[in-house]
């Protein structure tokens, strides 16, 4: 008996030792990593540059304490974060002037998707293919191909990756559900237009642009203190360009040929001029100040009940739907445009921003930046980001059965990822955008009367920019000589 007990104890001890050994073996990589990590015991401060007032950007830093805890446990170093910010229109300027001096003032930058070329070409940001090869966890499966094309690749059509998607973003149509569902509206709409008032997400999925115009005309009630629609028309940054180019692309047009750098004849097509006119014509269903609306002004107008509907980025969902409008707003796909067969086409401009890593980081900051990225794409981090209202891009999170219901804009965001694309990942993008904004707003504000002239002017100048840069093979045509707004 005694012997048996001893035997049992021995067995127990052996079992315990085995279990302990197994546990130690399992946790060994972490311990070993922490022990061997050259950063062990160090304190590192990381600076992130992001977009001012942009919730998903801010979340990158707000969630960082979780990373700091993980870094301490797993790698053995202390890390703190600070956040520098600038509005969209000044962010590139802030990043570029710092990076041009080879500074590591900002270790990680939240860039806009079009800037990849401008940041990658001067080699200011870290090429990521070797990093991903060394850290396979960073080779994430994305929800849609546009994610890689928009947030990672430069030059277009290659496989060279420079960014990680920080936040995905698409356009959505924010609708005041309470006004839409008010008693009598459906019957009145039916009586006026002889068709059913769209009420559900599925109804809006089938909504054509022409029917959408009827809808906003019906709800355009300035006498009651609100208008039918709100869109972006401001000259600042890319505010009028994004929705205008969305209408252009959805109606079969394009903005350039990336393989030849050709713009003239593509961007200033008659179809695109018609599309620009369509977007500007919507101003009659909007508040008088809509001509100056950018993202912020549109948020104010919608959140304060000045408009029935708004075409706005999904990323600003938390600001568009304040507590006062909770359960009163639905976010649906923006209208489609029927092709020749009658099938609705949507090809909207994608929003969103990638993370890029400063190429001038010292080895310690570079390692922390890579560790941070690895942590960012862990399933639990991605889920937490989604729960806080950020827009993740990984397939695992977006395919969760509960994803669509997490926030009112998530279903539309996910849907529109399949119907969105980016424009110009070219180093000269800022110059091209500036001239395009000038031309489009000249037409929208009545400085010039002809949308075709606005596009001709922009196309000529953009063609010259790309030719001077060596991207376009053709010079602007003779028709461009002396062209002015």
């Amino acid at each position, binding site marked *: 008996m005694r012997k048996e007990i001893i035997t049992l104890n021995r067995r127990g001890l052996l079992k315990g030792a085995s279990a302990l050994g197994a546990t130690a073996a399992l946790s060994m990589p972490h311990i070993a990593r922490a022990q061997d990590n050259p950063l062990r015991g160090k304190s590192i401060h990381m600076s992130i540059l992001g977009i001012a007032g942009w919730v998903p950007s801010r979340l990158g830093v707000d969630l960082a304490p979780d990373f700091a805890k993980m870094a301490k446990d797993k790698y053995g170093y202390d890390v703190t974060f600070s956040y520098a910010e600038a509005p969209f229109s000044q962010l590139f300027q802030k990043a570029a002037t710092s990076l041009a001096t080879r500074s590591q003032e900002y270790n990680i930058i939240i860039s806009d998707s079009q800037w990849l070329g401008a940041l990658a070409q*001067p080699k200011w940001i870290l090429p990521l293919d070797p990093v991903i090869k060394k850290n396979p966890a960073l080779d994430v499966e994305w929800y849609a191909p546009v994610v890689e094309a928009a947030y990672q690749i430069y030059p277009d059509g290659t496989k060279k990756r420079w960014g990680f998607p920080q936040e995905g973003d698409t356009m959505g149509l924010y609708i005041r559900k309470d006004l839409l569902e008010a008693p009598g509206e459906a019957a009145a709409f039916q009586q006026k237009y002889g068709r059913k008032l769209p009420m559900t997400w599925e109804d809006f999925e089938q909504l054509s642009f022409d029917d959408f115009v009827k809808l906003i005309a019906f709800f355009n009630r300035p006498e009651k203190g609100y208008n039918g629609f709100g869109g972006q028309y*401001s000259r600042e940054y890319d505010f009028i360009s994004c929705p205008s180019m969305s209408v252009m692309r959805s109606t079969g047009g394009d903005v350039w040929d990336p393989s030849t750098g050709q713009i003239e004849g593509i961007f200033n097509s008659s179809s695109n001029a018609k599309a620009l006119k369509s977007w500007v014509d919507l101003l009659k269903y909007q508040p008088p100040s809509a001509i100056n609306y950018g993202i912020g002004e549109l948020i104010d107008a919608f959140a304060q009940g000045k408009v029935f509907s708004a075409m706005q980025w999904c990323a600003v969902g938390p600001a568009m739907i304040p507590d006062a409008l909770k359960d009163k707003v639905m976010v649906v796909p923006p209208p489609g445009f029927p092709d020749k067969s009658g099938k609705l086409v949507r090809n909207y401009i994608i929003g969103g921003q990638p993370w890029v890593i400063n190429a001038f980081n010292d080895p310690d900051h570079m390692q922390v930046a890579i560790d941070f990225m690895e942590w960012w794409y862990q399933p639990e981090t991605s889920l937490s980001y989604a729960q806080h209202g950020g827009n993740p891009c990984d397939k695992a999170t977006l395919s969760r059965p509960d994803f669509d219901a997490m926030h009112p804009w998530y279903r539309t965001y996910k849907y529109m990822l399949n119907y969105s694309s980016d424009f110009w990942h070219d*180093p000269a993008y800022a110059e091209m955008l500036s001239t395009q904004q000038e031309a489009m707003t000249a037409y929208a504000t009545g400085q010039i009367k002809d949308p075709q002239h606005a596009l001709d002017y922009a196309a000529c100048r953009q063609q010259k920019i790309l030719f001077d840069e060596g991207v376009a093979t053709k010079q602007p045509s003779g028709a461009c000589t002396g062209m002015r707004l």
Partner: protein
Amino acid sequence: MRLASKASSPPRRRQSFTEFLGRREVMPFLLLVPVLIFFIIWNTIPTLWLLGLSFYRFSLTSGRPPIFAGFYNFDSILNDSAVWLGLSRTFLFVILAVGIETVLGLLLGLLFWGSQKLPGRRVALTLLFTPMVLTPVASGTFWRLIYDPTFGILGSIFRGLGLPSLNFLGDAHLAFGAVLLVDIWMWTPFMVLMTLAALASVPKAELEAAEIDQLSWWQRLRLVILYHGKFILMLGILLRTIDAFKTMDLIYDMTFGGPGSTTEVIAITLYRRAFEDFTMGWSSALAVILLLISIAFTATFIFVLHSRDRKQASLAEEGA
């Protein structure tokens, strides 16, 4: 002989460095050294750098080194319709802003000068000068809000009067006037200040003589006040002209140069091309051209200032 001569003359003591520095002819140069260092580092070197860069094709974001292009940038600027439009808009802005500010400043200045015993004059003057001391960005922001047709107070007043709410900054026909008005609101006090300074320079005896001679108000203004105060007023006008020519922050904050390009003055064009497009060579060339225009203004300013001295000198000569 040589030895004797050497012995007779007192031995010359070697001058110490501190003594050298303390000499009358050295000290002024020495005192200039700090400011010269500052001037060379912050003014001369950047200006020379700017001048050099203006002959290169260089985009900060292209990843390519600057390429020498001779006068290509200057040629491109002189053939750019947007630049000419920007320049003409700037000159129009300068002429209208400075002209209206001068007239209003003169009138208000005379009003304040003639009401020295009125109670509350100091408070009124302080309030009047407030816009001038505000930063243009702050002024631009709150005027943008005032002008907003949906949320702004001006739109609210218009609606209250049963008038349509005008979109001052969004209408291509109204925006230029709207930003001009803000500049006038902001800088008229400066011209009031200059007018008061000019009036203070008028000899009291001559004013009293004008009163005894029963000169009309207009004669007094033209023959006495403007005669003595015109140099200070000219100084004000020239300072305002140089400043209005450089206006950028106020307009950019209100309209970003829009709608379209209706409020894009040349300083905004320069800012856009340099710090939004990063075409550094082209922008440097434009900056050099604008620098030459500013130098022309400054030369006029110095000429006007010196003309007073010249006139007084010639009067003195005639008197002698």
